[in-house]
């Protein structure tokens, strides 16, 4: 997944055969944050880059290709949003560098498509001045035409085109309305813009006044305020109800993951088990059967069964992101964040870390202050990413009895899960506080967050997220987890004694695990968990696959399901220690790699890994002894 999420595209890898690269024209998509550039990009290219209803989702350049009606293929570059041509943050710098032709590996663009939010032209049109003055052929798209009409706004497009000296079109990137203008523009003989006047570009005020004059001359009528957004905000940002609803939303997310996820997961488990037993008789060689079915398949399927929970999590996060609620949640949480020294802009990256730390660390590019950005990068892996979900669910389902708390609404297991998420969050806050009051001290910078109007999440966007996540998850299960499971199955069957596999404790895997016992015994872990901790260094959920394989191969635990087997291996204290260990430990090579790349040094990932491992070990030790003392 990291390779898909992190890599900027390069022209060198273009798949166009027989076409001279110089002949491919490049069009850059530019505009303020959250005006719909990526939605437009997806519409035009048929790709599905992540979109959401808050500013700062796109933080890197990404190239896609479109075929025009006359058959010509052109490259379209999606860029992070900018408010001006003076880049303050890393993501803005990407855009400015690409536009100025200073980005290595990217040809300077031949033309620009400037996307502006038509419902917010008072502010957004000011960006047209510096973009037009670049002198490149420019098409101005006024996006969200449907909202403009619905809220009784108006703009005289022809007049605006005359003032700006560029073609202008009213479009809706979501519905596809008016997008043929892009094709027309690129196929036509493109001209340099010839605006009637341009302001002094370095003067923000003058740019605004220029935009205002042009708006007046183009008969721009501001749309009416979004009534529903006001009504909803009166509740969601209410002094009392706001935080309460925020809390209920969080609780509902966890309860849904458990209440709806478990049954779905059970169905998937039965199906996968059935598949295993159906194939088993057709594999005649006992050794190969043991390797493939009991080893590899048990390992892979024990991770695959968590797909429903993960998809539910992503669905709910998707609804919150696309509706615009997350921006409100950022307002509610900001006071807490600022107390711990976190930049206001850190909230959205940290929230996206609940899905995965890799895109979250990329998203910190929106934070202007370097030290604030570093602090956010350092704490992001403490947020409970979706790879921890299978581990948590497995241990909780094995050790926490399913009881109802507060009536039918909230279960004990969801509560345990919520507790783990809170622990991760508190560890992040604590670490941020420490960093910000020592090595990463910095002055406060203004925090400004534009609150987008609420929108209905589109089925397309939600569906794409789920599809994308399913692919990534199944891909991981089919590669890393399959490889580890297979390797482990082999290692549990070696060395052969007179053609027979050894007792599992005496196998290579067994000895490897046993060599870890002196270190992990104080945490209440046996050698099998030790092997799991070792393999989970690749990625957290690999431990689930590893245990699946080990229990599948071990004749004593073969007939048990994963949860029963786990019960026979761990005390309650050990289970608590395992959970705490996973809450704090930095077991993710993709995250370390992305931290190394974004901080441009090994110092930070090394510090992060050491700090988190020490904290995980210490925390697990305390948890074990505390729980054992209480429940004995």
């Amino acid at each position, binding site marked *: 997944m990291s390779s898909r999420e992190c890599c900027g595209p390069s022209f060198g890898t273009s798949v166009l055969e027989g076409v001279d690269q110089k002949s491919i024209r490049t069009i850059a998509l530019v505009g303020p944050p959250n005006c719909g550039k990526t939605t437009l990009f997806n519409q035009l290219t048929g790709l599905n880059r992540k979109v959401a209803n808050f500013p700062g989702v796109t933080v890197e350049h990404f190239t896609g290709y479109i075929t025009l009606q006359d058959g010509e293929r052109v490259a379209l570059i999606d860029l992070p949003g900018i408010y001006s041509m003076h880049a303050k943050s890393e993501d803005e710098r990407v855009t400015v560098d690409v536009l100025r032709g200073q980005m290595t590996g990217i040809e300077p663009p031949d033309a620009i498509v400037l996307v502006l939010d038509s419902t917010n032209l008072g502010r957004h049109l000011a960006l047209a001045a510096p973009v037009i003055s670049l002198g490149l052929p420019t098409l101005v798209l006024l996006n969200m035409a449907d909202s403009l009409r619905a809220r009784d706004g108006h703009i005289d497009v022809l007049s605006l085109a005359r003032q700006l000296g560029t073609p202008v079109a009213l479009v809706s990137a979501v519905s596809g309305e008016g997008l043929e203008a892009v094709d027309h523009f690129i196929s036509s003989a493109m001209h340099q813009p010839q605006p009637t006047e341009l302001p002094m570009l370095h003067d923000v005020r003058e740019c605004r006044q220029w935009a205002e004059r042009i708006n007046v001359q183009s008969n721009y009528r501001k749309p009416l305020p979004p009534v529903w957004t006001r009504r909803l*905000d009166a509740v969601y*940002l209410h002094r009392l109800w706001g935080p309460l609803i925020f809390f209920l939303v969080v609780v509902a997310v966890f309860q849904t993951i458990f209440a709806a996820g478990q049954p779905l997961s059970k169905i998937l488990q039965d199906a996968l088990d059935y598949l295993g037993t159906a194939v088993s008789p057709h594999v005649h060689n006992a050794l190969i059967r043991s390797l493939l079915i009991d080893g590899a398949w048990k390992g892979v399927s024990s991770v695959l069964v968590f797909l429903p929970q993960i998809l539910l999590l992503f669905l709910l996060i998707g609804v919150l992101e696309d509706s615009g609620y997350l921006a409100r949640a950022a307002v509610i949480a900001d006071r807490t964040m600022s107390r711990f020294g976190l930049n206001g802009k850190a909230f959205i990256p940290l929230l996206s870390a609940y899905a995965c730390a890799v895109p979250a660390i990329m998203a910190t590019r929106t934070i202007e202050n370097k030290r604030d950005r570093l602090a956010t990068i350092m704490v992001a892996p403490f947020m409970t990413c979706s790879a921890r979900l299978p581990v948590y669910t497995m241990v909780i389902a094995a050790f926490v009895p399913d009881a109802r708390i507060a009536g039918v609404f909230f279960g004990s297991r969801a509560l345990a899960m919520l507790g783990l998420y809170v622990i991760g969050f508190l560890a992040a806050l604590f670490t941020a506080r420490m960093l910000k009051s020592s090595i990463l001290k910095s002055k406060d910078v203004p*925090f400004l967050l534009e609150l987008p109007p609420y929108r209905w999440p589109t089925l397309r966007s939600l569906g794409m997220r789920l599809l994308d996540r399913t692919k990534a998850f199944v891909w991981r299960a089919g590669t890393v987890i399959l490889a580890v499971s297979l390797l482990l199955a082999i290692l549990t069957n070696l060395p052969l004694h007179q053609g027979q596999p050894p007792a599992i404790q005496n196998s290579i895997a067994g000895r490897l695990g046993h060599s870890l016992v002196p270190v992990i015994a104080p945490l209440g872990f046996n050698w099998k968990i030790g092997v799991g901790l070792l393999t989970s260094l690749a990625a957290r959920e690999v431990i689930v696959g590893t245990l699946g394989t080990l229990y599948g191969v071990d004749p004593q635990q073969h007939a048990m399901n994963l949860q029963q087997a786990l019960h026979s291996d761990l005390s309650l204290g050990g289970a608590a220690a395992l959970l705490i260990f996973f809450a704090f430990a930095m077991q993710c090579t993709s995250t370390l790699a992305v931290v190394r790349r974004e901080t441009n040094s090994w110092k930070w990932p090394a510090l992060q890994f050491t700090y988190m491992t020490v904290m995980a070990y210490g925390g697990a030790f305390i948890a074990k002894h505390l729980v054992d003392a209480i429940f004995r």
Partner: protein
Amino acid sequence: MIFRFASRAPSSKTRPPVRAAKHAGQRRPASGLPESAASAKANVADPSREIQLVPLCDLPQGVHAIIHEIQLPASAAEQVMLFGFMSGVEVVSGQCGPGGDPRVYRLDGTEVAIRRATAQHILVRIPSVQEQA
């Protein structure tokens, strides 16, 4: 009872600016603003047109005001200006996070949340009743 109620209720609409202006004075006693001079002059001409400068963060919810001055370092000032906080722009104070920080301000048809620490350096004036009419 009745007296107390009556004495409070009518003044509640006109009081905030006055109270807030006091606040502004207390917080920045040595700011050397033109406000005192301006208001003194205005006072002579027409008491109802007195200019009362209030830090944006002290603007009560739902009250309209006009941004008068931004007292932030150049780079920070530019940043808030890009979001539309510029002198002469009308701003309305909106909802806020728990404890009143940060607060959402409506200006130019958009809503922007900013922290108190920033908003206290943006001075606004509340137009008099006649001006609003």
